[in-house]
């Protein structure tokens, strides 16, 4: 299995500000993934983060709103920029090992 640590675990932020979420994995992986889980809804993939290249965003998500960094094979950050209450969600990072994906505990973000 894999161990994925996310920081912060939760935060309450003012609208218009930005929050950077950190994700640390316990082994080197090529791909890391960022998901959003809006209240009462399922998980939606935001983007795939490969080390050494720009992240690949899913439809409906853009780099200006969700910039991602992937400086090495065990770490990634997701920034939620210029936040609004609609960004209140749980954000999860994930890595895949073989044919299985592992998820962090998530960052619960509330925008007020």
């Amino acid at each position, binding site marked *: 299995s894999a161990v994925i640590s996310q920081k912060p675990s939760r935060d309450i932020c003012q609208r218009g500000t930005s929050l950077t979420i950190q994700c640390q994995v316990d082994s080197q992986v090529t*791909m890391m*993934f960022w*998901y959003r889980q809006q209240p009462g*809804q*399922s*998980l*939606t*993939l935001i983007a*795939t983060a490969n080390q050494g290249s720009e992240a690949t965003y899913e439809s409906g998500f853009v780099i200006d709103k969700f910039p991602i960094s992937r400086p090495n094979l065990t770490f990634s950050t997701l920034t939620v920029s210029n936040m609004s209450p609609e960004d209140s969600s749980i954000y*999860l990072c*994930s890595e*895949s090992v*073989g*044919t*299985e*994906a592992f*998820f*962090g*505990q*998530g960052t619960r973000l509330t925008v007020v």
Partner: protein
Amino acid sequence: AQSVTQLDSHVSVSEGTPVLLRCNYSSSYSPSLFWYVQHPNKGLQLLLKYTSAATLVKGINGFEAEFKKSETSFHLTKPSAHMSDAAEYFCVVSDGVYNFNKFYFGSGTKLNVKP
């Protein structure tokens, strides 16, 4: 494109009775399929996975699922529900077996277990 449809948003069963959570998938490739469980305020836990081997897959906690290509289904079952099974269950498809890339989640099914 890959997608999954979970046919029931809520399922309620009595303790000791069978559980059936339904999932249909759409995939352009040979899919890998998974069931994850999320207990309240907990992280996601893998229950079981199908990756083109045996079509009947056994997972943890007595759960199993059968891959039926002709029906594009991957329903989750358990013979006898336990109170601790109350959680939300997600059916998930990925876009390949050996080129595993990213997951697409169903909308989730909340399982309620009555005493």
